């Protein structure tokens, strides 16, 4: 799994996640995002366009991050979910509790 900061737009820190978010890699995702959050980035856009797979461990990490940000009056938006990742978000109801957008561009427009 690769996690990279791909830019900043209107105060939103953009992170791209590629690969798989499973029980092995989810803790790394959580730690990397917490590092950025603790460094002051409390408005995040997470681009999942290259994320191929997510399990409940991945959802758990995303929820932890979302709760952490909400407590700091921050915000997270996820975008470009595809295939099985999109399916997992929808059937778990996560797409209704965490803002989801089609693309980074449309997420930025919604700010």
């Amino acid at each position, binding site marked *: 799994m690769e996690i990279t900061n791909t830019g900043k737009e209107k105060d939103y820190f953009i992170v791209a996640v590629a690969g798989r978010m*499973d*029980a*092995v890699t989810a803790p790394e995702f959580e730690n990397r995002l917490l590092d950025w959050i603790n460094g002051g980035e409390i408005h995040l856009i997470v681009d999942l366009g290259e994320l*191929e*797979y997510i*399990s*409940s*461990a991945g*959802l*758990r990490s995303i*929820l932890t991050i*979302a*709760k952490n940000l*909400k407590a700091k009056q921050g915000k997270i938006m996820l975008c470009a979910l595809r*295939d*099985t990742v999109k*399916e*997992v978000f929808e*059937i*778990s*109801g996560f797409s209704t*509790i*965490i803002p989801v957008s089609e693309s980074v561009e449309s997420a930025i427009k919604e700010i």
Partner: protein
Amino acid sequence: MLEITSPARVEHLERLIQFVVGHAEKAGFPIHRIKEIELAAEEILVNIFNYAYPGLEGDVSITCRAENTGLMVEFSDTGVPFNILDVPDPDLTADIFDRKVGGLGVFFVKEMADEAWYRREGDRNVLVLVFDTHRQGAEGREPAGDVET
């Protein structure tokens, strides 16, 4: 190889999943369905890693069997007696602060597998998942209960 046994630890997850994926590929499932099978397998395995052997080491075994109608995947462990299928579904409508993630893994298993059974066999937990080649729909099925295999 039809069976694999490994210590029940998360560092073995990838190898165990690859075993199941290899059999799913051989059985001719499309990629989208293989990802669903992968997810179900991960959720079962991670549950065993986390809960089967509290304070102890133990193994997990997986057997795959291709049938005319699809793939049967059997997970077994000698951990504490536990039927993961008994775990209640999470509340999918709860908002972010009320949301508990417990139960989400087994919920995915029930959604992705066409059939799921549990039995206790001596000192083993045995959990069987069946993935039909021609699946009926996205809804999870009820566990079939007593089945002659």
